[in-house]
C-alpha cells in the first residue's frame, strides 16, 4: 500500500478532470436506473447488462466499419424495444420491487452468458477514430471519447429533466408514480406510459454502452464492477430525479479520483460505498 502522498497541482487537476469524465458515465448509466426505480418502482439490475450488450454490439459494428456514434441509430430503437418488452413481462406478472431485483439479476446472468459465448471472455478494445484524438486545454488533456461521454451525459440528463418538469407527459409520469389510480382517474394511461419509460431507460443504457465501448476495454466480468458505484450515484442523487445521478456521479467520480491520486487506486471503491452507507443510515427516506 503506497503512503499518503500529495501530488502536484497538474496531476491533481488532471485527476479531477478524469473524475468528472468517469462521473459523467456513472451519471449516464445511473439515469435509466434511477428513472426506472423512482418512477416505475422496478429495480433493473439488467440495466448494466443492456449497457454492456450495447457496448459489445457497437464494438462489433465498428469492426465492420460502422462509426460508433452512427451505430446509435440502430442500437437506440433496438434497446427501446427490449426495455419495453421486459417491462411488459414484469407488469403482466405483477412483480414486486424486490423480486424485480432478483428477476433482472437472472436476466443479467443470461445476457452475460450470451456475451461470453459470442465474444469470449477475452478483453476487447474498440479502436475508433475518436480514440486517437485528444485536445489539450492549458496543461490538461481532454480525450475525445471521454468528452463525447460528458456531452451526451449532460445533454440527455437535461433533456429528461426538461421533459419531466415541463411536459404534460412528464407530469403524468410523476403523478402516476405517486398515485397511479388517481392519475388514471384523470385520464393518464399509465400502462402505456410505463412502457414508454421503460423503453427509454433501456435506450439510455444503450447510449451509455456506446460511451463505455469508446473509452474502456470490455470484458463480460466487468459488468459487475459498475453495479455498486452506479447504485451509489443513483441513491445519492435521489430516485427518479433526472439530474440526480449526474450530479452524484460527478461527485463520486471526483472523490474517487482524488482518493486515487492521493493514496492508491485500490482505495477508490471505499468512497462511493461509504457515501452510500452514510446516506442510507442517516436519511433512508430521502433515497426512496
Amino acid at each position, binding site marked *: 500500500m503506497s503512503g499518503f502522498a500529495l501530488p502536484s497541482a497538474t496531476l491533481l487537476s488532471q485527476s479531477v478532470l478524469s473524475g468528472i469524465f468517469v462521473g459523467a458515465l456513472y451519471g449516464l448509466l445511473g439515469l435509466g436506473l434511477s428513472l426506472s426505480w423512482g418512477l416505475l418502482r422496478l429495480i433493473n439490475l439488467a440495466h448494466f447488462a443492456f449497457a454492456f450488450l450495447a457496448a459489445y454490439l457497437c464494438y462489433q459494428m465498428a469492426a465492420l466499419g460502422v462509426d460508433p456514434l452512427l451505430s446509435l441509430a440502430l442500437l437506440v430503437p433496438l434497446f427501446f424495444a427490449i426495455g419495453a418488452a421486459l417491462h411488459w413481462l414484469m407488469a403482466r406478472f405483477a412483480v414486486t420491487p424486490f423480486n424485480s431485483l432478483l428477476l433482472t439479476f437472472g436476466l443479467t446472468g443470461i445476457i452475460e452468458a450470451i456475451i461470453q459465448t459470442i465474444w469470449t471472455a477475452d478483453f476487447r478494445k474498440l479502436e475508433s477514430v475518436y480514440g486517437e484524438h485528444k485536445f489539450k486545454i492549458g496543461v490538461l488533456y481532454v480525450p475525445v471519447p471521454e468528452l463525447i461521454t460528458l456531452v451526451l451525459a449532460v445533454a440527455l440528463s437535461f433533456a429528461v429533466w426538461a421533459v419531466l418538469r415541463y411536459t404534460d407527459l412528464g407530469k403524468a409520469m410523476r403523478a402516476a408514480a*405517486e398515485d397511479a389510480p388517481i392519475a388514471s382517474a384523470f385520464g393518464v394511461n399509465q400502462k402505456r406510459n410505463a412502457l414508454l419509460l421503460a423503453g427509454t431507460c433501456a435506450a439510455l443504457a444503450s447510449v451509455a454502452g456506446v460511451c463505455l465501448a469508446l473509452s474502456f476495454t470490455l470484458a463480460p466480468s466487468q459488468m459487475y464492477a459498475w453495479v455498486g458505484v452506479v447504485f451509489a450515484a443513483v441513491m445519492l442523487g435521489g430516485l427518479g430525479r433526472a439530474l440526480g445521478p449526474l450530479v452524484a456521479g460527478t461527485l463520486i467520480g471526483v472523490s474517487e479520483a482524488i482518493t486515487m491520486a492521493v493514496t492508491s487506486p485500490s482505495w477508490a471503491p471505499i468512497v462511493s460505498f461509504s457515501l452510500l452507507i452514510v446516506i442510507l443510515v442517516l436519511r433512508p427516506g430521502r433515497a426512496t
Partner: protein
Amino acid sequence: MLELHDLQVAYGAAPALWGVSLEVRSGELLCVVGPNGAGKTTLINAIAGIQRTRAGRIVFEGSDITALPPHRFCEAGIAIVPEGRRLFTGMSVLENLELGSYLPAAKTQRKQSLDGALALFPVLKEKLASPAGELSGGQQQMVAIARALMARPRLLLLDEPSLGLSPLIVHDMFAAIRRINAEGMSVLLVEQNVVMAMEVSTRAYVLEEGRIVADGAPDDLLARPEIQRAYLGV
C-alpha cells in the same frame, strides 16, 4: 345522466356492494349518505372507474361505460374528488391543476378552467407554486375540487369532502359545491356528515351495508324513523 343498474362490487371474497341501483339526473345535486362501512367510497370509486365491478352496469349519458379501462372514464365526462383528497403531494398546486386537465379536450380550455377555479377559490392564487403537500387540509380540499373541475366534467363526484376539516371550512366548502351545481354541473356527493349533505342536496339516497335502503327528498328522509334509528338507535 348517470344510471347504476344492480352494481355489485366485491373485494376478494368480501362483498362491498350488493346490487346498487340509483340514478343521477342532469343538473341535480344528489347525495348518498350512510354510516361508516356502508360502501360509499366503494360506490364512488366504481363510478369513477377506479374500482372494478363484479356485476351490474354503469350507464352514463346513454352509453354503457362499465367495461371501459380506468383511464377512459375521465374522457367520458366524469371527474372525482377522492376521499382524503389524494393530491399529488410532491407536485406543485399548479401542476396538480394541470394534471386535472391532462386530456386533450380539457387541455384546450386549460386557461379558462384555471381562471374559473381561481375565481371560485381565490386563496389558491398565492399558492400555485407551493408543493401541494404543504397546504392545510381545507386548502388541499379546494385544490382537489379545482383539479376535478379542470377536467371539465359533466358529472362531479365528491367523496366525503368534509372529512377531517373544521366546521367553518366545511361550511365554505359546501357553499362552493352549491355554487358549482348552480352553474349547471351535475354533482354526486357521498357523505357521512348527514347534516351538511342534506342541506345542499336536492335528492338523497341512504346506503347501508352495501344496499340502498331509502331515497327521496332530504327533509322527508331525516324525518323518517328508520333513518333516526340508523343514526341514533332510537
